[in-house]
């Protein structure tokens, strides 16, 4: 089992306050990883640093054995927690844009996802509700044949039906050797689908374990473990 992502000693201060501090972890291939922590813990910062949108002060990021650079961006598929869609576009335009910008974008898959996520490709992105925008972003991110998918708050503001659809898509739509990193507050939603846990607090990794280990050896659900870890933090 090879590592898709390895992070060593990653440090990034913001205005002098450490937002990421000496992070060390790996993501193996074929795993679903839950990145969890309270607001301001550094989840979005970590994902953006992996995507090279932010720059670390110290440490290294390796993707499939290669140092993070322009080429490795093609191995990562990113779903931001804010809306990056260009305002004049319709969903169909966004599909074309993605198709041009990302060589591994699968138009057929995108079509299937649009159907299962109930997306009307003729609609303008400015006319979409927040929840629908998220579904579009998930559709775009999961239509790429990447090695690692980084989803930042994919469930925020989505109804239970949509949440189920998204979970189903994550479970079935990803290649066996690809991995998914989900940053979320909704611990309950990912309770049964997440393999590995990364708990982040104030930029530090306070727990890194598999969910089944937590159940077997701590006798706790992921949610209970989260509450325990963070109420003491």
């Amino acid at each position, binding site marked *: 089992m090879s590592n898709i992502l390895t992070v060593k000693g990653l440090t990034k201060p*913001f*205005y002098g306050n450490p937002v990421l501090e000496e992070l060390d972890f790996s993501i193996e291939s074929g795993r679903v990883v839950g990145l969890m922590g309270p607001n301001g813990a550094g989840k979005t910062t970590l994902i953006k640093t992996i*995507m*090279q*949108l*932010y*720059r670390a002060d110290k440490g290294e990021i390796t993707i499939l054995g290669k140092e993070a650079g*322009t*080429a*490795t*961006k*093609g191995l*990562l598929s*990113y779903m*931001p927690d*804010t*809306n*990056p*869609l*260009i305002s*004049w576009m319709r969903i169909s335009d966004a599909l074309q*844009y993605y198709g*041009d*910008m*990302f*060589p591994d974008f699968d138009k057929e898959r995108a079509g299937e996802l649009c159907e299962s996520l109930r997306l009307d490709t003729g609609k303008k992105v400015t006319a979409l509700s927040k929840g629908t925008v998220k579904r579009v972003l998930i559709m775009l991110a999961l239509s790429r044949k990447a090695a690692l998918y980084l989803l930042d708050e994919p469930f925020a503001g989505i109804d239970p039906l949509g949440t189920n659809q998204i979970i189903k898509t994550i479970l079935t739509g990803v290649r066996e050797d690809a991995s998914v990193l989900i940053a979320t507050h909704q611990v309950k939603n990912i309770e049964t689908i997440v393999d590995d846990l990364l708990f982040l607090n104030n930029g530090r990794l306070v727990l890194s374990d598999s969910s089944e280990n937590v159940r077997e050896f701590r006798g706790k659900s992921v949610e209970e473990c989260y509450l325990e870890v963070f109420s003491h933090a």
Partner: protein
Amino acid sequence: MLKNLKWDALDFIHRYYLFLIGMFASFLLVIIPIKSNGVLSELLVVLSAGLGFVVFAAGLILAVNVGYRWLVRKSHLLELTAPQPAWKMLLSKIILTTLINLLICLFILQMSVLWSNNGKFVLLSMQNLKGIPGLVLLLVMIDCTVMFSTIAAMSLRVLRQRPALSTGLLAVVLLTGIITFCAVYMTARGTLILPSISGQNILTVSGSLMIFSTVFPTLFALAVILLEFLVGSFLLTKYFERDEM
């Protein structure tokens, strides 16, 4: 890179189609033949000129925008995470801003000829067009400097904390520096010829917009653009970061 250019151009057209319509409207207003050569005809020419100058000014600003807005908008999250080298993104913006600047320079010159001929359709001559490359080059150099300043301001940790201020300061400093250097160099060499734009010259058929009257400023501007392109690409690849906190 062509794909970048395609989407950048589409983006420009979708966002600023009013500007393009304005150009077309200004052209129509002056070209519509009026039977009676009277007050109405004069009025249309004045309207066309007014609109034309507004459109020209808007065009100048929009051309600068091309180099700057894409880094500030949320869509940078998409553009910067695509597996494409920085130079492709920058080159596309430089080409687009060149095309826009070229368009508005041709527009204002052609319109000036039309206005001074009261709407009679007279096309620009080669003589008129002599000054256009120089003017476009100057404008592109300014736009590139703004784009470079934006990238540099967000690449150096010290400057990142006040990105808008840093960008503005950097752009002003660089432009002042470039123009001063150019002027000093040319004075020293005795080749300084101040641009002569007399109202008479622009508005007649024989006039032209000559800014760069010697070879040196042209080469210098090209060198500045090239340098900003190369260093900008490097900074964008390794150091650029947009602080959203």
